[in-house]
């Protein structure tokens, strides 16, 4: 079987798996990294949202062969380390607002939130309700309002 290598949460990893297996399954089924969740498999629910080189992506829609050895994949498990702390400010905001209910979608929500805040910061503007409306991550518990509050609070500290 073909070998694929990329960086995962700060470490180089190599997996032996078919070219077209999507990154989500490489993470979960091969590497045992279970923070990114399955919710649809077709890049609509966003529960698996993770970062590739700092940008939000959905591993359910990325064949593992598309990754280069230098590509840095960050899952929720590696988010805090990107700021050298036990918790990323967005994770802390999530705790402060007690956002999670069942928690299944929340790793994806947090990863999406961090990417959104970074993107808006790069555009040199404040986050707006219209920006928050663009978040596509489904939360079936309906934590949307607390997500909005947590993103505004977390953005202040990023």
């Amino acid at each position: 079987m073909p070998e694929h290598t990329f960086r995962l949460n700060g470490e180089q990893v190599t997996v032996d798996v078919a070219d077209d297996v999507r990154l989500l399954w490489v993470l979960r089924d091969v590497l045992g990294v279970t923070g990114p969740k399955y919710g649809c498999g077709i890049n609509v629910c966003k529960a698996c949202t993770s970062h590739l080189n700092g940008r939000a992506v959905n591993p359910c829609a990325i064949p593992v062969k598309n990754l280069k050895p230098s590509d840095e994949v960050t899952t929720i498990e590696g988010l805090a380390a990107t700021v050298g702390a036990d918790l990323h400010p967005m994770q802390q905001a999530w705790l402060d607002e007690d956002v999670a209910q069942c928690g299944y979608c929340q790793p994806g929500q947090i990863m999406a939130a961090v990417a959104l805040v970074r993107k808006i910061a790069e555009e040199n503007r404040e986050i707006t309700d219209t920006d928050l409306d663009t978040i596509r991550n489904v939360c079936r518990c309906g934590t949307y309002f607390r997500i909005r509050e947590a993103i505004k609070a977390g953005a202040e500290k990023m």
Partner: protein
Amino acid sequence: MTGAERSAPAGPDGRVVGRRRFLGYVLAAPILVAAAELGTAPRAAAGIPSPEPTALLDLNDVMTAAALPTSGLITVEVHADGTVSFALPRAEVGQGITTSTAVLIAEELDVPLERIRVSLADARPELLFNQLTGASNTTVSTYHPIRVAAAVARGRLLRAAAIELGAAVTDLTLKAGVVTDLVGRSIGIGALAEKAASMTTQQVSVELKPREKFTVIGAPHGRVDALAAVTGRKKFAMDLDVPDARPTMVCRPPTINGKVGSVANADEVRGMPGVTDVAVIATGVAVRAQTFGQCIDAVRALRVDWRPGTAEGQSDESVLAQLKAAEPPLGLPPLTPYVEEKFTFHFRGNSALEPNCAVADVRSDRAEIWASLKSPIVAKETIAATLGLPPQAVTVHVTEGGGSFGRKLFFDAALEAAEASQKMGKPVKLMWHRADDCRQGRAHPMATSRVRIDYLGGTVLGYKQRHTSVATDLSHGLGEVFTALAAKLPVGDIGFSETFFQLSQSTPYEFGVSTRLLNETNKGFNTGSMRNVYSPDVTCARELMVDRLAATMGKDPRRFRHDFLHEDRSRAVLDKVAEAGDWGRAMPAGTAQGIAFHSEYHSVSAALVEIDCRPETVNRPIRDGVAGPRVTKAVFAVDVGLAVNPRGLEAQMMGCVMDGIAQALTSSLHLRDGYFLEASWDNYFYTRQWNSPPDLRIIVMPTTTGEPGGAGELGVAASMAAVACAYGRATGTMPTTFPINHGTLSFTPKPTVPPVPQSPTDGLNHAY
């Protein structure tokens, strides 16, 4: 005001002698293990005449009463490291009961919340009815037993400390997990865990802490599993590392409950990359592989000849015709003026974000199952029977659940996993694809509700509601509860569904002679109790008619409700949302407020929403989604009698508001040719950020009854009704079909063969 009676819990001063004394046990064990034998349900206010069965006994009372004889088997354990553990015989699916349970123990035991470890108990058949999670009953039925067990533990710890410190028990205080005597000597509960243990099982009488001394109960607490959730460490069933349990999916039929006829290419699929096994099971063809991605490939490659299902050829239109034929008569029109309307509620999916899933390891002589299960005892017994094993050979572990909304009352995936594991002779990690979850999963049944209210002058003479529904499957254990207690119910000899309906529904207004009936038809669908079961539809229909009646009488909707509501508690929540939401403020054309009320589970609630139905809002562009009217603001007031954890209650009500918005405006299943067209979240339009109110306020009312009422589902009904009422007022036309956008199909249906869509490959193009 005949319905204004109130139960009599411990008085407002909390000093009713004998009311707080309970019996518990200390069990024979090497460490301190305290158990509660029985709780009480002090509010079964029997004997007071009332036209409303729910005022005598509601669904929660039935479940609480059913649970009583076995509640004694729940145990609080104190460990040498100073932690306290409790295995909760319920399912945590996001509703926050592990947190609220920890709160109860922390309060009664005087141990810091962070040292309480609440896990989920395996299926325990000896608990009989006391391991069913549903009907917002957990806190109602466990509030006393858990506290009694904790109080027994507290008493034993103080006795052990008295011996250690050579002091009188009355001179000791237990605070923050440390016992201190009058001169300041102290000992932690960890050091007492073995010393307080008992060599024999003993019965102990304890008094519970009076309400006025509560410092933990009633204070806001974050979830005990919040850190695990935000770091990705929280483990759901599919995250468990069970040795050799490989990903498994099922190739399912193109129509609801179709059956496998023959498989043309099983051997070919068995040879596909990563695939280890292919086996026909009752519901389809199971494939096991190294990754779920390879399961998807295999499912898509299978060539199966399917037999017809249980809804062959049926559509929205044909089911509507069946409902019409099954509608019970409303009777002759009254001679007095009346308002009357018929409402239609389409099928809705109750998929959680975590799809149906389970891990199973079945051997020749035993089986082990891991899944989020709200009826684990029924699951265990059914799985054992299916596998041909004795029930005691089947161990069922209840895992943390990624949402339920009624879905996890059933164990469809656990049963399939067990069957697949047995047939393959290997452990499996079985998960439904989202398309399976939408198309073959449980749905909230389509229903019609007809309401007639007759009145004369300013008096309402009678209220009739006739609810006609596709049958709701209640075969998950609630039925057993009702069987056991049917003779005690004040509703006569009627079926389970009607009993459930009568017990969960009430008319909170002074509407004269009030009757509500349920009639069910067509058992061909996979249905289930969706969050709040019948109430969202029944309440939505009622509240819309209350608005119409108010308009007919020339009264303001809030004023009308205020004047006709039975109870002070009810008027209080209504007044609260009206005040906080600035009811009656001037709003632009095309926008409006709506207000609604709902009571259930010994709790009362009111919602006020503002909606924007202007074309520029309704038609705003949303990719692969539905915009529609926007609820711009929601204010929700809730009185659950006593909120154990107000912060958790707020979260639950927020979620209920989102469900109410979805049910009123956007989310439904479309039935055509025997299958549901929806196959994923880009077809099924549950509330998304762009539909959610940017202004949302939940108001938890001060303690009223002093006893916790149900909360988990409570808020859906009033929310849905308020959105519907607001929509009617904004557009000038009362909606009668829900969700309001059902007539417009807002997506292109995905194919049914193969049954699941392939994952995209263009993920890198969408990075942001």
